[in-house]
């Protein structure tokens, strides 16, 4: 019976995908850098291996992260992945245990019912048959949800679902056909022989009552095998390649490999590990507030994978990092986009497979001529200072923040030097966000020079954009602090005496401070110290972008205004007295988008400072808590 022809589409597909996966992962492994290879080797024989196994079980099979986002969506993914996995495992056991011999080829387990139609009439085998039917129901329930989701995405908390290429559609169709055709094939066969579990047995009996089941059954076995075969053959060119690649990604990530700042095999693995699930689309503010639905990370990764011209997609992103937070596969979407931006304009022709890792891409990177040059900057005369205050470009557009910071530092008796009082040089991050790292390096060197020469121990900045780049791309001895951290420090060490303002305020986490640098608690501590802090929806790691982001070069001001209005609306839903942020850019953007008063955290604290002591009054009355009308 093993010579049945219908099993061959499945067999060929399976052997093809196995060989392809092995070859592809070998190529990826070979093109890793030496350090990454060592990491992977070390990881394979250590703890990372166990972690990976656990993660594969929790994420690739159970889809825990998607469950957290939406239980129905999680169930859909889990039933398909975990259900199929169980069906394969228990199918193999069934064939091994009840089949005519042990160690069967995979096809024997997959088409077990065809080879053993009479099986499962009574005893343990019958119970096992019910169990296999239950697994099939489990998968089919998920499949039903998947079909519904395609047409009504809102049901599973998804605003939008991903648009697919035609190969994806064929693969999707064949995937959808696999389980119903298995159900019908088993049903017909069971019907003819009067066997089967609660589902296939009863369905078979019902179908056989009015249909010539014995003649129809082979067609459905063919359909089952063909849809499996088609699915396997299309796997490498569709989004479903994420199924094998995600395992590789998990091993690599747990071994300590990161995206870093240049294109590598790891980046390639990440692009293939994307399942285009579309969760990034539904959290993207460009989509929900500005109606832009073609540039989200799912499309970016898809374009990268299929080597389309994605220059417009790459540039059109706020780089807020919300999609990074929710990606169930854990792809580093922001860093990948930055790598692509660094490539600059690329010829639209497809790169040959071999050139992608080889010299061509590296050479293009090196030969790219610089667009900017800052040779006009003169090195500054340097004064020594313990604390340097760098306001940053944006803060110079909100002078009230600078005034507030000066007041606070004077009140706390901090001896500081205002580094860019006369207008400094940009920190370099806007250039980096535009993919011009080399040009940014010139500015970084200029600023580093000043900071090094000053001998400062602490560098305080009022701008999260500067803060992030100071921490990540500067090599400094000074401790870099955002002013919210610094104020918190001053309060904690008791050098800042503050009153309490009877105001209800909400706090907005700026992207670069919160998600970008992990500073969530210090600003909240400061605000709670001087006012009543109210909770907001989508706080902390899911904080909304104000829309003013420098990460996006091409977004028009109208669309930015839409995003700002949407975000401000969400933040001020509880009608607070003030919307507090910690970023001059967010402050300016929000100020135009809402009626609520928008202030920086420094301004709030400056209002809570005790009034200067007047001679006519006693010292105690000057320090009494009072609510001041305005900042």
């Amino acid at each position: 019976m093993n010579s049945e022809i219908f099993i061959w589409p499945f067999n060929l597909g399976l052997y093809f995908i196995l060989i392809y996966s092995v070859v592809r992962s070998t190529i990826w492994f070979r093109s890793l850098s030496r350090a990454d290879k060592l990491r992977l080797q070390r990881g394979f024989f250590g703890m990372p291996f166990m972690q990976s196994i656990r993660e594969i079980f929790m994420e690739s099979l159970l889809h825990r992260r998607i469950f957290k986002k939406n239980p129905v969506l999680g169930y859909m993914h889990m039933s398909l992945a975990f259900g199929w996995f169980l069906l394969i495992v228990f199918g193999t056991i069934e064939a091994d245990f009840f089949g005519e011999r042990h160690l069967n080829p995979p096809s024997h387990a997959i088409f077990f019912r065809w080879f053993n139609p009479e099986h499962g009439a009574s005893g343990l085998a019958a119970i096992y048959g019910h169990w296999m039917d239950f697994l099939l129901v489990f998968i089919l329930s998920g499949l039903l949800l998947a079909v519904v989701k395609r047409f009504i995405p809102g049901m599973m908390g998804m605003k939008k679902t991903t648009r697919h290429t035609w190969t994806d559609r064929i693969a999707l169709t064949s995937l959808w056909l696999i389980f119903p055709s298995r159900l019908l094939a088993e049903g017909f066969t069971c019907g003819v022989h009067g066997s089967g579990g609660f589902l296939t047995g009863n369905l078979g009996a019902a179908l056989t009552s009015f249909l010539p089941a014995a003649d129809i059954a082979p067609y459905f076995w063919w359909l089952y095998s063909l849809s499996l075969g088609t699915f396997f053959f299309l796997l490498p060119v569709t989004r479903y390649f994420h199924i094998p690649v995600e395992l590789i990604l998990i091993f690599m990530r747990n071994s300590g490999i990161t995206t870093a700042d240049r294109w590598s095999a790891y980046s390639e693995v990440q692009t293939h590990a994307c399942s285009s699930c579309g969760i990034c689309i539904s959290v993207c503010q460009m989509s929900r507030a500005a109606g832009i639905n073609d540039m989200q990370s799912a499309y970016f990764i898809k374009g990268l994978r299929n080597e389309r011209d994605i220059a417009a997609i790459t540039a059109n992103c706020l780089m807020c990092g919300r999609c990074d937070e929710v990606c169930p596969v854990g792809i580093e979407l922001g860093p990948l986009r930055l790598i692509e931006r660094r490539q600059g304009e690329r010829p639209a022709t497809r790169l040959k497979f071999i050139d992608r890792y080889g010299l061509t891409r590296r050479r293009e990177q090196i030969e790219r001529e610089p667009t900017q040059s800052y040779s006009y900057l003169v090195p500054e005369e340097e004064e020594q200072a313990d604390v340097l205050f760098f306001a940053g470009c944006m803060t110079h557009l909100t002078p009230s923040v600078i005034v507030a910071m000066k007041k606070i530092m004077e009140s706390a008796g901090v001896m500081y030097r205002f580094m860019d009082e006369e207008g400094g040089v940009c920190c370099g991050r806007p250039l980096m966000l535009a993919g011009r790292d080399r040009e940014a390096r010139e500015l970084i060197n200029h600023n580093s020079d000043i900071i090094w020469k000053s001998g400062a121990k602490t560098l305080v900045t009022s701008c999260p954009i500067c803060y992030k780049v100071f921490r990540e791309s500067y090599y400094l001895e000074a401790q870099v602090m955002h002013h919210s951290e610094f104020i918190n420090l001053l309060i904690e060490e008791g050098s800042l005496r503050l009153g309490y303002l009877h105001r209800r305020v909400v706090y907005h986490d700026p992207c670069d401070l919160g998600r970008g640098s992990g500073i969530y608690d210090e600003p909240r501590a400061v605000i709670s110290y001087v006012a009543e802090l109210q909770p907001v929806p989508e706080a902390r790691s899911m904080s909304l972008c104000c829309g003013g982001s420098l990460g996006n070069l091409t977004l028009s001001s109208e669309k930015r205004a839409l995003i700002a209005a949407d975000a401000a609306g969400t933040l001020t839903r509880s009608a607070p007295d003030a919307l507090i942020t910690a970023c001059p850019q967010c402050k300016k953007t929000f100020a135009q988008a809402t009626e609520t008063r928008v202030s920086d955290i420094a301004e709030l604290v400056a209002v809570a400072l005790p009034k200067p002591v007047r001679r006519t009054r006693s010292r105690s009355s000057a320090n009494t808590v009072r609510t001041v009308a305005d900042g």
Partner: protein
Amino acid sequence: MSEQKANRFGFAVNRSRAINYDTSDRKVREYVTLREPSFRLCFACGGCTAACTAGQHAPFSLRKMNTYIRRGEIDTLREEVARCMLCGKCLLVCPRGVNTRNVVAMTAEGIRKLDRNEL
């Protein structure tokens, strides 16, 4: 720079500022306008120049750049555009909502393409 003066018999003579619209190179202007349509909204108020970070260190003015782009003064533009730090202050002060950073980026890209005969 356009303010360069030629020395003729001991007299400083300004270089001709006349623009021949038949011969001036409009390719970069077209490139920028096509890719950043908000460029046309600019009414040359100079807010960007007043706020500019780079402008405090070097002669750089987005308002002037606007004129150079329109006139097709590519050589002046090539020097000028390279000084921008893309910090984005101009974006926040612009009363017309011009996407200034992209104007700079597209100008630089346009000139680069022009130099490579790709425009």
